[in-house]
């Protein structure tokens, strides 16, 4: 295990975030719960189908957790993978842990089992909202190599809180998908700075699309998760109406912008290009008062 959240595997992230050896895995690799759809396409299966689930404690609070492994098919969601996450969330409705943590790293639906994967993502979305409606906060962490895209980009925003690192990326259609569909003039997926200005952690934080920005370290993610658990949730019509206002304002203010830089300039950053160079503390201090207001939470 390294100190970097980005570089760790899903299993190492769980071990590093939870207290001591409190993690109790459900359907571990020894159970051989694998995808039934890959062999026909000559694709190797994984004994955990790319997601590790279970329960443990963090700062003494009992939580349930699911961690996607980007190293297996880019964390893509298939039938079994999705059902494991749904199981965690439904169990949370029954047992009321202090929170459900979703460590997401995924390109979205696993195309080799596209229909099963799409339905699974939809089931995850409904299960996240069911957990929240039952009073269990759902906390998403995004900071891995593959980011969080596709339907899981939508699912993540159904959660109570999103914690991202600067290296984390969050969106719906990935840059390659848009480039393939609309051409390199529309979106150059190899222009890493452009991609970062479009879906990167700092941009998402400034927009109000994620709630906390942390440096790429296990300790920082853990602290932010503990703080999010303490913040509680606000699943209410009033919160949705506030979000509606925020999203309406965003289209009004930034709908004509062509680049993340234009948005940041409109937010009052005198030198948008300096944002990339700022360390996390410097950025967070400068971001307050400039970023879009996020939904007010009530504990």
């Amino acid at each position, binding site marked *: 295990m390294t100190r970097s959240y980005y570089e760790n595997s899903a299993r190492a992230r769980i071990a590093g975030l939870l207290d001591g050896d409190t993690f109790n895995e*459900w*359907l571990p690799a020894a159970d051989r*719960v694998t995808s*039934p759809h890959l062999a*026909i*396409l000559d694709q190797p299966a994984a004994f955990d189908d790319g997601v590790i*689930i279970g329960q443990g404690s963090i700062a003494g609070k009992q939580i349930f957790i699911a961690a996607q492994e980007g190293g297996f098919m880019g964390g893509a969601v298939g*039938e*079994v993978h999705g*059902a*494991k996450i*749904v*199981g965690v969330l*439904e*169990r949370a409705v029954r047992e009321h842990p202090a929170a459900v943590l979703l460590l997401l790293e995924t390109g979205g*639906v696993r*195309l*080799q089992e*596209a*229909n*099963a*994967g*799409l*339905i699974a*993502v*939809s089931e995850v*979305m409904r299960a996240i*909202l*069911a957990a929240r*409606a039952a009073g269990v906060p759902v906390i998403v962490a995004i900071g891995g190599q593959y980011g969080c895209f596709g*339907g899981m*980009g*939508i*699912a*993540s*925003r*159904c959660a109570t809180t999103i914690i991202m690192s600067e290296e984390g990326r969050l969106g719906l*259609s990935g840059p390659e*998908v*848009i480039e*393939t569909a*609309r051409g390199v003039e*529309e979106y150059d997926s190899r222009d890493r700075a452009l991609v970062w*200005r479009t*879906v990167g952690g700092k941009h*998402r934080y400034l*927009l109000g*699309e994620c709630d906390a920005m942390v440096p790429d370290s296990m300790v920082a993610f853990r602290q932010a998760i503990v703080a999010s658990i303490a913040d509680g949730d606000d699943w209410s*019509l009033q919160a*949705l*109406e506030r979000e*509606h206002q925020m*999203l*309406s304002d965003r*289209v009004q203010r930034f*709908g004509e912008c*062509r*680049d*993340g830089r234009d*948005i940041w300039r409109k937010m009052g950053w005198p030198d948008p290009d300096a944002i990339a160079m700022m360390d996390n503390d410097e950025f967070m201090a400068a971001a307050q008062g400039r970023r879009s207001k996020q939904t007010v939470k009530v504990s």
Partner: protein
Amino acid sequence: MEWKKVAGQLFPDGHDIKQDGDLLSGGGRCGKHTVAVIGTTNHTEVGVELALAMAAAVLAVLRDHPGRPIVFLVDTSGQRLRHRDEMLGLNGYMAHLAKCVEMARRRGHAIISLVYEQALSGGFLANGMMADVCAALPGAEIRVMGLPAMARVTRISEERLTELSKTSPVFAPGATNYLKMGGLDALWEGDLSVCLAKALEHVDATDHRRVRGLERGGRLLADPVVQRVLASV
């Protein structure tokens, strides 16, 4: 099928659905039921404005007509594939719409969706797939991605995918595949107003899709896996 024709068949007792760009909204009467209708047309791509407009329509129903059932008329070629929409956080707009639909459900609104033309991935997740009852017309096209694009991403040849799609419901496009996998409740044929009335009588807020997928033989592991997680010690 053209939306006006669908609306005419769903609501023989009248409707006042209006088209504004690619957005449909209004109300319809089906026997003793008055329902709110929200939808899209022209195989539109759902970008930030349209997702927001649909969410606004859902919130308006919650405010002005508490408890009124909501019918989504689905016709979308998916999420808008633009740099600009991604930059603005399209996933967040889609999620907002999904949350509004969930809030409607939790406040007692029955949610029905009918795919009358096309439904693709992201554009479908945020409204049609959030319904209590999700139906499609038999000719409707439902898919995640076309086979050519799928071939590029998976690096499996298009010929191979085309061949496999003849027998497998798991990745191949098509309403009947979604029916088999439990993603659709039913294909609506014949008198659509009868189908709608029947659906309105049988709505419940539980997500039955994985159980349907198991019963219909299209998704054999989803429900057993959830059950195993629930039973794990």
